């Protein structure tokens, strides 16, 4: 069954990779984001390469009051949704957040509050329908707080907990919830940063996300070995961890 899929934050590189993998399997897509011109280009590209219908429209993650009308518009154009991928996020700057609470708030809102606002509505809809999936991009940064990015980590960690709860709630309804925890993926966010290793291509990550939704997986790390890296990092005793410069 190749139902319609809504991608929130569709112009990110990982979202683009997942969109290509879904389009290749014949799914219709709705691309949502802030930058309409980029969405128009992405939609044209996917439609031409894979011969599927690709719709797009603006989505303002911060305008929570607009989310219900937005979802209605998506339903009007696409009919019922088979799944939703939430791919927007904001890394921000921990250094800036330390001295500027607006930055702190921006990081927490974009990565957690805004995401919860739209996914609550999606969850209700999928629960009623009794099938489908929700996939959300969290982060390995949410697995343990570190001085270099703990505001971002806290927001992503909260988002991962939210998805965990949602998975529990939606299980009886037959709706699957996938938590994606990217390590180093070759995107605009990480490009050029020093100290990166074994960086994954967004197309490969996108294909894994799509495969994971089909197999009904709960939590995936991309690339896969980040599960073990984070296992080690989580297992370091706090008495020791707090002394590390991470």
């Amino acid at each position, binding site marked *: 069954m190749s139902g319609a899929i809504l991608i929130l934050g569709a112009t990110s590189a990982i979202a683009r990779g997942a969109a290509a993998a879904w389009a290749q399997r014949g799914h219709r897509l709705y691309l949502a984001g802030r930058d309409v011109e980029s969405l128009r280009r992405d939609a044209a590209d996917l439609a*031409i390469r894979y011969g599927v219908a690709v719709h797009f429209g603006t989505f303002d993650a911060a305008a929570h009051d607009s989310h219900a009308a937005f979802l209605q518009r998506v339903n009007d154009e696409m009919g019922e949704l088979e799944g939703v991928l939430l791919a927007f996020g904001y890394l921000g700057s921990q250094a800036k957040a330390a001295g500027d609470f607006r930055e702190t708030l921006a990081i927490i809102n974009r990565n957690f509050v805004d995401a919860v606002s739209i996914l609550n509505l999606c969850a209700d809809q999928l629960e009623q329908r009794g099938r489908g999936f929700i996939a959300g991009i969290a982060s390995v940064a949410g697995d343990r707080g570190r001085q270099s990015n703990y505001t971002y980590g806290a927001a992503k960690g909260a988002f991962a907990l939210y998805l965990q709860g949602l998975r529990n709630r939606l299980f009886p309804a037959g709706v699957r919830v996938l938590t994606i925890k990217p390590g180093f993926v070759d995107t605009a966010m990480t490009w050029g940063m020093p100290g990166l290793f074994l960086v994954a291509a967004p197309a490969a990550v996108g294909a894994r996300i799509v495969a994971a939704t089909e197999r009904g997986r709960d939590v995936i790390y991309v690339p896969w070995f980040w599960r073990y890296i984070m296992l080690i990092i989580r297992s370091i005793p706090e008495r020791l961890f707090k002394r590390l410069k991470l």
Partner: protein
Amino acid sequence: MNTLNKDIAGWGRYPVQRCELVRPERHAELWSEVPSLLARGQGRSYGDAALNEGGRVVLTERVNRFLAFDRAQGIVRAEAGVTLAELLALTVPRGWFPLVTPGTKHVSLGGCVAADVHGKNHHHDGAFSRSVRELELITAGGRRLRCSAQENAAAFQATVGGMGLTGIIGEVELQLQPIESVYIRARHQGAAHLEDLFRLLQESDGDARYSVAWIDLMSRGAALGRGVVMNGDHAARDELSGGRRLTPLRLAPARVRNIPCNMPGWLLNSLSIRAFNAQYYRREGSRSGSFLLDYDAFFYPLDTLTNWNRLYGRRGFVQYQCVVPTASALPAMRQLLQHLADSGHPAFLGVLKRMGAAGAAYLSFPMEGYTLAMDLPMQGAATLALLDAFDAVVLQYGGRVYLAKDARLAPASFRAMYPQLAEWQRARRELDPHGVFSSSLSRRLGMEEGA
């Protein structure tokens, strides 16, 4: 946007220079306000054309979206970071093929335009620009300018073959040619020496759409310039049999191997190349009759060996490609090959092609005549001195050197080889009065400076 200061090189891996890289994900991020800017596609030019030492280089690889594809008319429009490999994957199953293709499909459309690349059919179909219906050029200040042979014609003729120095090529619209199958009907003919090779190229000119000669650069004496002429035409569906006829537009994926790291510098020496060439000449020159190859095997044989430039080792290689007008081509090529033989310098891949009439672009390389390309391992001063001697021969016969391959041409030679430089400079000044767009190539050759 993140920036990355990195040592980069062209395909020949000489020279290596430090540039400030950015890699936008979107078309809207291509332009940025910096003192010195240059776009770089797949980095398949050989020398310093896609380098901007000390300045900014915009990698266009992620700005690669198809924007329109008219399956009835064979017109495709795309962001300039799209590669020919991506284009082929989209259009070939629908029966459309690029009108002009260079010897690798791992090139961006923007790069094809900027170098006004040519293929084995230049004598029939002209250079890449012949298939370009329209361009979108992002000029200094971030302004988007539509141009074509009809609209903003001066900007178009300065951008085609303009080596990225008029702005960033944002979008390209191409006219494709219809094909009935992915196959090429190929014919090989061995030529015992250079005169023979020229004769065969002239004869094949009339009937074969694609024509190219492999030339054994290590042959000496009476066999100087021996080689194999390779002709081809797109095969029609009714020339095929069996399964090929049922699915004529389906391509079997080529087996691709990778050169994982730099090979030792001595690998490609005179002895090993001579042995390879002798075997290749015997095998390919003696194939009789016509045979079918898929387009990957015919046009892109080296693409099956990823990172083949590593075969030349850490010091890299230079490709020397020149074109000489028809009337004096034979003596000029003989002199070049004799210089090479006398120098004892190893040279690997040699290619000789016939070219048709020049286009209207100011700095486009092709002109009516013959073009010779040779890959030489970089051996420092000896290599550079040999290439200077080549330049003298090419200049003497009224020819020119291909900028997309160049890493070492002298400014005075460049000026003598490109007589339309003043027109190009005029168009460029209008588009970029403050000289924001610049490259290591343009500074080395003094391309911006008055005559």
